[in-house]
């Protein structure tokens, strides 16, 4: 299916049983997934889960060792340039030319797509406005803050009107305000119809942006659904989280009565019954305890036995 047509209601990414090995390590171990046009798909998982490797294979930067990939209508490895002409990619390394200014960096990146001329200059201006970098055209890259650099990376990835925007950990290392600003930008893009593939180890990022979340662990896709669906199918609605070391007898009782689980020094008791958890918290006089809604993080913990930031 070599159609490569502009975004419609089609499928943007279709993976079947994709494998990538680095020597003995199975970085990606048989992943199948589909990303329809116009949604934001988040690959959520800890560092080393294989998210970046998978997104590089989708982005035609890395060959798969097995399985089949179809990205915007092409096999990405066989049609690298065809596919990459249609993608916008934000990697973890920004790799700007530090000696050049913002405008020159965009100009040069545009040339990699053979984009130039007045219409393209207008496009650059529009994207700098959109990413709130207008007025900084002549600033050397060295003088940009971390947040501005990341915004410029997103602007750069949009220069070619991509059919799929791939973002590899777009907010890692940014402070919360900048992170929220980037999320808001990505939401606007999504609302405009952009298809987005996002990798992240921030549960909140996936919950905020994604229409579908695939949870990855050790190279495998262990669960996939809407964020709400993932929580509903895997966990009761509420969770009592407490310090498992605070009162050993209380921990023992919670394990016995509420089937609480212990991960590291934290304890987790799940239940659909919020008042039950609240009364347990009160009865055991746990100071460092809280009752909250179950989150994607809890789903990940339940499915893998470890937390996302391990």
């Amino acid at each position, binding site marked *: 299916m070599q159609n490569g047509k*502009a975004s419609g209601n089609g499928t943007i990414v279709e993976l079947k049983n994709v494998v990538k090995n680095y020597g003995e390590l199975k970085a990606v171990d048989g992943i199948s997934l589909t990303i329809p046009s116009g949604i934001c798909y988040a690959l959520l998982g800890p560092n080393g889960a294989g998210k970046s490797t998978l997104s590089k294979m989708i982005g035609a*930067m890395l060959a798969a060792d097995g399985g089949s990939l179809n990205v915007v209508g092409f096999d990405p490895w066989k049609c690298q*340039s065809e596919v*990459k*002409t249609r993608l916008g990619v934000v990697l973890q*390394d920004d790799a700007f030319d530090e*000696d050049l200014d913002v405008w020159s960096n965009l100009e040069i990146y545009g040339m990699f797509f*053979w*984009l130039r001329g007045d219409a393209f200059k207008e496009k650059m201006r529009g994207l700098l406005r*959109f990413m709130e970098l207008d007025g900084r055209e002549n600033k050397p890259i060295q003088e940009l803050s971390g947040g501005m650099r990341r915004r410029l990376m997103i602007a750069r990835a949009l220069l070619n009107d991509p059919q799929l925007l791939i973002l590899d950990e777009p907010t890692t290392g940014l402070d919360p305000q900048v992170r929220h600003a980037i999320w808001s930008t990505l939401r606007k893009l999504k609302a405009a119809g952009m298809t987005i593939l996002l990798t992240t180890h921030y549960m909140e990022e996936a919950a905020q942006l994604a229409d579908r979340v695939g949870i990855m662990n050790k190279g495998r896709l262990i669960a996939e659904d809407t964020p709400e669906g993932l929580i509903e199918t895997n966990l009761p609605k509420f969770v009592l989280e407490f310090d498992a070391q605070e009162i050993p007898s209380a921990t023992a009782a919670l394990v016995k009565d509420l089937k609480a689980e212990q991960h590291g020094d934290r304890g987790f008791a799940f239940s659909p019954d919020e008042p039950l958890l609240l009364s347990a918290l009160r009865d055991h006089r746990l100071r460092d305890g809280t009752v909250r809604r179950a989150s994607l993080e809890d789903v990940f913990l339940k499915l893998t036995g470890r937390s996302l930031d391990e």
Partner: protein
Amino acid sequence: MSRPAEEAHRAAVDASAPPALMAPPPMPSRLNRVLAVWYRHYRVYCTSLIANATPAVLEPLFFQIAIGFGVGRYLDRTFNGLDYATFMAPGILGMTALYTASFEATHATFVRMRYQKTYSAMLATPLTRQDIFLGELLWCSTKGLLYSAIVACVLALFGNIRSPYAVLIPVAGFFTAMAFAGLSFMVTSVVKNINQFQYYFTAFLTPLIYVSGLMFPVQELPYGLYWGAYFLPMFHVIETFRLVTTGIESTSVSWALYCPFIVLVMALVLGWLGVRAMEKRLTA
């Protein structure tokens, strides 16, 4: 809301509105992709033109002043029928192209790959690994062309350029640079860290230049060693530069007219092998 305020508000909203979704551009051709890599290097290079070009041009000129004119004053004989400094000029030009390309294809390429992640950013665009290193090879060759031309202009002022074919010096510089860029890419594709290039420069390139006819005619090497020189790539480079700088009567061997073709073949073969080696080396 008052009217001006309303307009200002609308303008603010519009400014941050995402650009409308449009179809991506057509795929750029192979030639355009390779030229785009060249263009990137050209733009970055131009930001510090003087700092970049000055040492690369001054070094061979000091070499000529110190050895060609300085040492040459004490040599009471001719070399291939020329005074010593004029005899040295073709080798100086070859050395300029060699070092320019070799530095660009080792240290500079390694820094772009390992530290600046320039190639990672390029890989996220329509450029393939092969496009990237073909562009890199073209850029190294261009620098060889440019620097040999600049050094030739100064040598002409010294009176060392004797042939009307000297207009072809930049062409010889281009293909010499391509050959040594290809060879250097093969080295870059196997080194583990940037310090290992020292071996290549001090144990291979520098001795190579010294025994290939830069400072004395190779046929004067003792014990038939000159036969060995005929198999060194730099020998053919220097003979080629002799042809275009000081003319056919100043060459060292009777078959000197074949040397430009040997250099051309070396440029294409080594260039291609070097590109292939770097393609395999570059990880995403």
